[in-house]
């Protein structure tokens, strides 16, 4: 589904992704963790070409992301992206936020798009907020709208960049619940997060990134019980004392 071959990326002279190789299968749920600045966000932002790469190859559902002939619009409409800061459109209602891209990009008729959006809002647990503006919602509700907005494009993959780290503790669960359900329904997901409970519950694999490299990749059980890498152990002990 998603393949990285020797991917390298620089910001100016800063080498942020170093020879990344990975292969993510359809239906797989992968959690990415690691210290701040290690390149986690950059890794997933390269998948939908929010960031270009300088060397290597990324293939998503058979499409070469960085090839000129690739239809970026089509690529992006197969990938849902959920941001840490939600990035909802503040001038549009919740419903309009969800239907904008299906209508403008996928040319879905408005009626159909709205009906689908209402179904999705129900699925993420906020069917009654369709006509509110984002400023009238709590952080947890905003993030669930953002997930609905991602799902509205009917994507094959959902990418999450620290979806709960801007939220107050009491709202984290409501968002994670939606994500767990999504994982159980078989969505292919890459989730950058430090929510280790989520990783244990639904992840098929956990990646640990450090300084632009994936230094450990394992099943959650192995990863938490038996971390092989020194840096992973150090990192886990920090997270666990924090929790």
């Amino acid at each position: 589904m998603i393949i990285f071959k020797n991917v390298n990326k620089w910001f100016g002279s800063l080498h942020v992704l170093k020879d990344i190789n990975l292969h993510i299968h359809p239906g797989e749920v992968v959690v990415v963790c690691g210290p701040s600045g290690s390149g986690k966000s950059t890794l997933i932002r390269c998948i939908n070409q929010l960031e270009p790469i300088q060397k290597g190859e990324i293939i998503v559902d058979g499409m070469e992301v960085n090839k000129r002939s690739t239809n970026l619009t089509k690529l992006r409409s197969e990938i849902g992206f959920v941001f840490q800061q939600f990035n909802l459109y503040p001038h549009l209602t919740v419903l309009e936020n969800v239907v904008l891209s299906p209508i403008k990009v996928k040319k879905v008729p408005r009626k159909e798009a709205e009906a689908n959006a209402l179904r999705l809002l129900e699925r993420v647990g906020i069917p009654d907020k369709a006509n509110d503006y984002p400023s009238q919602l709590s952080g947890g509700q905003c993030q669930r709208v953002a997930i609905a907005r991602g799902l509205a494009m009917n994507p094959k993959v959902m990418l999450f960049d620290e979806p709960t780290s801007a939220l107050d503790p009491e709202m984290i669960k409501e968002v994670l619940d939606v994500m767990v359900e999504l994982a159980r329904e078989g969505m292919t997901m890459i989730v950058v997060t430090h929510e280790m409970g989520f990783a244990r519950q639904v992840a098929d694999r956990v990646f640990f990134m450090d300084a632009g490299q994936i230094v450990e990749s394992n099943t959650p059980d192995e990863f938490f019980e038996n971390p092989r890498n020194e840096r992973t152990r150090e990192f886990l002990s920090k997270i666990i004392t924090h929790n």
Partner: protein
Amino acid sequence: MLEHFSFRVIGQYMPLFLRGLWATCWISGISIFFALLIGIIACGLRLSKGRFLKKIAGIYIESIRSTPLLAQLYFFYFGLPTLHVNLNEVQTGILALALNSGAYIAEIVRAGIVSIPSGQVEAATAYGLNYLQRMRYVILPQALGVTIPALLGQFIVLVKDSSLVSLISVLELTRAGQLMASERFMPAEGFFTVAAFYLLIYYILKYLSNWWQNRLIYMEGH
């Protein structure tokens, strides 16, 4: 002093003033429309990736902003006919006003766009909207919202600047005042009336902008 102030003559000249007022309104209105269009396009070009287009927009904006409007007006009025472009006085006036304000509006809109958090562009990009769609549905509605006070200021400047077209003998508000002043030797009455009408336009614009702002804040983007 007031007994020398001739309200009677102002009354006599009222039809002329009203004609002038009407001309000022529609000339300004059309100019504002084109200025907005030009400003948004110039701003779009300036923020685009194309080097050449960026440069063109930059030159346009800078050369307008660094020269007096009167010089621009004379350039079009006296210069265009020698280049075999024949516009009448009103068209020349609208051209000069729209191009002039367009450059300022381009900068105002740019400031508004730059103030939109980068996350908005990222979200719109990630969800497949192309450059024009991002501008139209996500960036501009928000940018116009935050720039309304500055845009209103520019509209008011344009209305006042439209008085310069009296110099190429277009009959608008200021010209009406000039006519009264010179025919009746009553500059105080003539230009006082002119000022009062500009004030009236100012209040109407201010009212409109408040109304527009309230609508835009909670309006969908299309």
